[in-house]
């Protein structure tokens, strides 16, 4: 089995998220990190590989992003991926979800993976949809928000986090699976793994190398048009009930809830 894991470089969780009003895009300056959800996807790949239920020949980390995104790949291989692929091109800048999914699918086609894993959401865009878009382009089944993967005869048995409880789904390979953070506890890379990471092969691809049609990516190739951004409206301040006499306070709370037909 060959597993490709999609990874992304995102602003560090400690960096406050801001929209750059001049471009209508997220301000991605400042400290960066590998998208935390993707570390769960890599860990899931490693657990399948190390679990031994099915032989895994290769785990390949794949990203699309600017030059700095090699650091996300560096971390991905330090966490266990065998090699990495970096799709990077000026023409890709400003791609929306559909364009990004298209470009990634072209990159993945070159690899013909049996399984594509990714984090269910990125810490910056939080669109939750890349997996489904990639699956659509690749013509593979898509499973999202998966929190358990078991290998079964040529299939994977997965648990999906649903609104009420879990869905258990069997999926035929090849497939695209996005994982939630409840799926595992990602490991930390060891010092040796970090220092050995640079020795693992990295393929740098331009859009044309991956067979990506320039007209279908970038700002111009994207269907999403960003309008103006404004801050969400200020919420009305809540009502604070001073607790002087607890019986009275309870009455006030009950009255408040009844007024709104909540009880």
């Amino acid at each position, binding site marked *: 089995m060959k597993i490709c894991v999609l990874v992304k470089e995102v602003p560090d969780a400690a960096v406050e998220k801001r929209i750059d009003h001049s471009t209508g895009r997220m301000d991605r300056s400042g400290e960066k990190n590998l998208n935390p959800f993707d570390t769960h996807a890599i860990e899931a790949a490693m657990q399948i590989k190390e679990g031994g239920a099915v032989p895994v020949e290769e785990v390949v980390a794949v990203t699309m992003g600017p030059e700095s995104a090699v*650091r996300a790949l560096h971390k991905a291989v330090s966490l266990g991926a065998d090699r990495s692929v970096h799709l990077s091109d000026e023409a890709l800048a400003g791609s929306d979800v559909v364009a990004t999914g298209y470009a990634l699918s072209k990159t993945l086609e070159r690899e013909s993976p049996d399984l594509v894993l990714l984090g269910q959401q990125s810490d910056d865009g939080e669109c939750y949809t890349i997996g489904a878009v990639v699956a659509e382009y690749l013509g593979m089944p898509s499973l999202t928000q998966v929190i358990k993967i078991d290998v079964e005869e040529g299939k994977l048995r997965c648990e999906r986090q649903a609104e009420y409880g879990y869905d258990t789904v069997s999926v035929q390979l090849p497939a695209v699976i996005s994982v939630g953070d409840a799926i595992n506890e990602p490991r930390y890379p*060891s010092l040796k793994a*970090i220092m050995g990471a640079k020795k693992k092969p990295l393929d740098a691809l331009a859009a044309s190398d991956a067979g990506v049609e320039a007209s279908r990516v970038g700002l111009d190739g994207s269907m999403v048009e960003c309008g103006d951004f404004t801050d969400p409206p200020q919420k009305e301040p809540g009502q604070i009930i001073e607790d002087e006499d607890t019986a009275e306070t309870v009455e006030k709370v009950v009255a408040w809830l009844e007024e709104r037909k909540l009880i």
Partner: protein
Amino acid sequence: MDFDLSDDHALIQRTVRDFARGEIAPVAEELDRTKSFPYEIVRKLAGLQLMGIPFPEEYGGGGGDTLAYVLAVEELTRIDSSVAITLCAHTSLGTQPIWLFGSEEQKREWLPRLCAGEVLGAFGLTEPEAGSDAGNTKTRARLEDGQWVIDGAKQFITNAGTDISGVVTITAVTGGDNGQREISNLLVANGTPGYEQGEPYRKMGWNASDTRPLTFTDCRVPEDNLLGPRGAGFKQFLHVLDIGRIGVAAMGVGLAQGALDEALAYAKERRAFGQPISRFQAIQAKLADLSTEIEAARLLVYKAARLKDAGRNFTLTAAQAKLKTGRLAVRATEEAVQIHGGYGYIEEYPVCRFYRDAKILTIGEGTDEIQQMVIARALGA
């Protein structure tokens, strides 16, 4: 000049930062409160090969450089000084002398286990009558039938009395008269009869780190436990301390940064007079000054590390870095408590612990006054 970390260094920094936040922060308060040695964390650090960062892989080390070590120590101290000093004393003071001066046999015997974190190393220099004046050691060792017989006492020794403490390097007078004392370094394994570790001290801070007095009474070790040439002990410990200062300086930067992290977050949350206190100029000035001082101090520490890695003389820069960062840690933690108001005086807030942990940084591994002496000497004053 390049101020960017290499990809490897950036990832080491990132990894230890995530590890400290994820694995240490949740237990730091409890370890401090219960004065418990962080065995579990040491085991995890060892699993990531962080207990022997700057030593070569052929001896089981991490194969990293001094900068990698500094980044790791800084990130640990940002969250927990006790864990940081445990790693720091083990690496710079415990393992370092064996790596620097040990025979091939001594290296083979000790380095793999030390670097794997299976056993902890300690360095016993300070004595009741030999602190800053470390050459005034009263501990004696005499050769008798192919064995060194050691008698004496050591004071304030880190890492010597845990369940996994393996070996201490001590200075002892091995000969000479009082005008020309001959000092040598000897290795003493835990469990050697006559070598005892006293009760842990009740300290102001570093509560989860192990610090004890040691006594040696008719303690016999093989003649081969001499580290390097006989009589080289004085020069050897000065060199070890030079290196150790870089690690402790990294602790100062890390602690100051941790204090700023907490102070900034708190100032943005805490409201007074209808707005977050971070909007008040007086608070902003404190935060701005701290961040400026920290950045300057950090560059000094990284420079000391870089000089060492380049094989150049780093004595002056390491002493400057140690002097600068110890004071800064004391000041930064004080300001962080101030910004927290009364809450900063309560142990639920990390800055309370940070404040107690800071003071030792102007004392241990050479007091500020000793750093000033080292610096003035280097200036030719």
